[in-house]
């Protein structure tokens, strides 16, 4: 019950090998240069990382009985242990890019977009957040109206991951397409191919962390796309993205877990190697207790993350409910992301002055950790979800 399958462990060994050989040697440089490594995506595609939850007919490898979502979490954890930006590139590429198309797309949409996304020859993004609608995503202002057989989209999105890479093929955005009978805005999801006239990708943000990950603001001025670019049912956009986010939260937990593993490894090694007052700093309880706390956070994060991933796989088999997954995902995301921020603070402290230097990876992880408490729902939003599931309405 408390271990992953041998397949998952074999897969972990493979991804770790890949991450250490193909990713680790470059990340410090990429981070410094704020460089998104376009060439890495097809390599990850060849490994099957983008296709873990995608059925074989679209080039993926998903076998519902084989724990496909769990496998995705293993991959994100292992990439995240080497670099958080690379981990989020996979997490967002699958969770926000591929997943909505796979779940809500028509056969024609799947056929058109999925094969390239699965092979890592293209990336897709999901634009929900706007300059004036984040936690309150229902406040979306972006509008889409039907004109003949086209949607005409106007508005803006903020902070959209993977939206401006050289290989970004499509961005799915939520937009108001009218009003429901009860007067609430009707929100739908519409696919906007890169390069469509009127669709502008702003220059990359200057961020605190996740420097290797691609993030842009997007604007839409009279962007015209065919009517069939509607993703899923009209008026279901809000519901659809809420479900997308549940899965994404488990993936973020896996990303935080990768960070926690790395912080424990780095801190343990440094506490043994660094001497002060004539002995390793790790013999002082002021240091060793911090390392112990890191181990506890890592273990707790592992249990919460893989419990949630397992539930998600079980739910796909019809054995657990969506509500159970939702709650487990919010709990895992809340705990692991807050632990990640604490862990980088502890690890940096153990590294002393070196911890403040970019020469050591803990500094990069320190900068990268904070976003985990914000993206895919802030900690406050997770608490809202958890409390609501407990019957405390807000």
């Amino acid at each position, binding site marked *: 019950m408390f271990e992953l399958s041998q397949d998952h462990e074999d*897969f972990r060994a493979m991804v770790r090998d890949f991450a250490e050989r193909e990713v680790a040697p470059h990340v410090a440089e990429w981070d410094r240069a704020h460089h998104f490594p376009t060439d890495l995506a097809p390599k990850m595609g060849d490994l099957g990382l983008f296709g873990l939850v995608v059925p074989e007919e679209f080039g993926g*490898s998903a076998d519902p009985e084989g724990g496909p979502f769990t*496998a995705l979490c293993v991959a994100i954890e292992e990439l995240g242990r080497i670099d958080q930006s690379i981990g989020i590139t996979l997490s967002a590429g699958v969770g926000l890019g591929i997943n909505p198309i796979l779940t809500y797309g028509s056969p024609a949409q799947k056929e058109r977009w999925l094969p390239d996304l699965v092979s890592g020859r293209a990336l897709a993004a999901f634009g929900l957040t706007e300059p004036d609608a984040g936690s309150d995503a229902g406040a979306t202002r972006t509008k889409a109206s039907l004109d003949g057989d086209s949607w005409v989209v106007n508005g803006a999105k903020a902070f959209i991951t993977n939206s401006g890479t050289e290989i970004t093929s499509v961005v799915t955005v939520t937009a108001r397409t009218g009003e429901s009978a009860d007067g609430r805005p009707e929100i739908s999801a519409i696919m906007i191919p890169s390069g469509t006239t009127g669709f502008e990708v702003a220059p990359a943000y200057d961020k605190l962390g996740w420097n290797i990950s691609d993030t842009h603001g997007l604007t839409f001025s009279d962007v015209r796309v065919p009517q069939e670019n509607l993703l899923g049912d009209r008026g279901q956009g809000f519901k659809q993205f809420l479900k997308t986010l549940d899965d994404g939260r488990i993936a973020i937990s896996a990303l935080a877990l990768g960070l926690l593993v790395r912080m424990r490894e780095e801190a343990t090694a440094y506490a043994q190697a660094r001497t002060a007052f004539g002995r390793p700093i790790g013999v002082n309880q002021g240091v060793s207790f911090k390392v112990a706390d890191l181990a506890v956070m890592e273990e707790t994060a592992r249990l919460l993350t893989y419990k949630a991933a397992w539930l998600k796989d079980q739910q796909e088999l019809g054995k657990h409910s969506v509500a159970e997954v939702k709650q487990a995902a919010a709990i895992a995301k809340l705990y692991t992301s807050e632990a990640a921020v604490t862990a980088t603070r502890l690890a940096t402290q153990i590294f002393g002055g070196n911890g403040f230097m970019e020469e050591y990876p803990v500094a990069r992880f320190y900068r990268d950790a904070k976003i985990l408490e914000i993206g895919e729902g802030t900690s406050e939003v997770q608490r809202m979800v958890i409390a609501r599931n407990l019957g405390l309405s807000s």
Partner: protein
Amino acid sequence: MNIVVCVKYVPDAQADRGFDESDLTTNRESVDGLLSELDEYAVEEALKIAEAGEGEVTVVTIGPDKAADAVKKALQMGADKGVHISDEAIRGSDAFATSLLLAKAIEKIGAPDLVITGMASTDGTMGVVPAMLAERLGLPQVTFASELTVDGDGVTIRRDGDTASETIIAKLPALVSVTDQINEPRYPSFKGIMAAKKKPVETWSLADLGVDAGAVGAAGAYTKVLSVTKRPPREQGQIVTDEGDGGSKLADFLASRKFI
């Protein structure tokens, strides 16, 4: 095209490797093992050839129980079936006995069109098994291939030397050993990992191969390890401050070590 790839399970080169003090064989218990990296090139090359046409790739390994992991990795990469030769009596075998066992196994598998091996193992690094094996099987041996093409009933390889590259052509069936320049081995995908579980692996003993215990192991060895010595610890580096004579100090150092 039926291809047999010979692969070796070796101690991880990243780990602290050593010898078993009782019989001076490689200590395989205390370090994790894996499919020899140099053999990944052989597996990759076989898979590429098989994928380009019709073909089946069989991997063979010799070694203790854990050596099955080398077969498993090759199957995860995409090979079709595996053979694991395992027998207590094999412990301590040298290259001569290894080539005998591989030859017997390949005969039992059935005449392949092509046998591919790595250029050497990453632990013993003798690189003689391919030649011995070709001799035992009566196949043309084309070794150290940095490029391999199969056309019709022959193979063409390129062997890169220090000053020249040779092109060698041989008729099939043949044995080819490949270098680490020949390709970029793939990582197994999750799909490959799941599929590997369903692929057939046979375990053969000496009796299955009709090989006498006296012909293998320490008893059948033509070489004997008399002693082993630990690598001397790394010496402290020497820091030279450049006071205008840095270049000549560097040259003196290189000369003292007979580099120049």
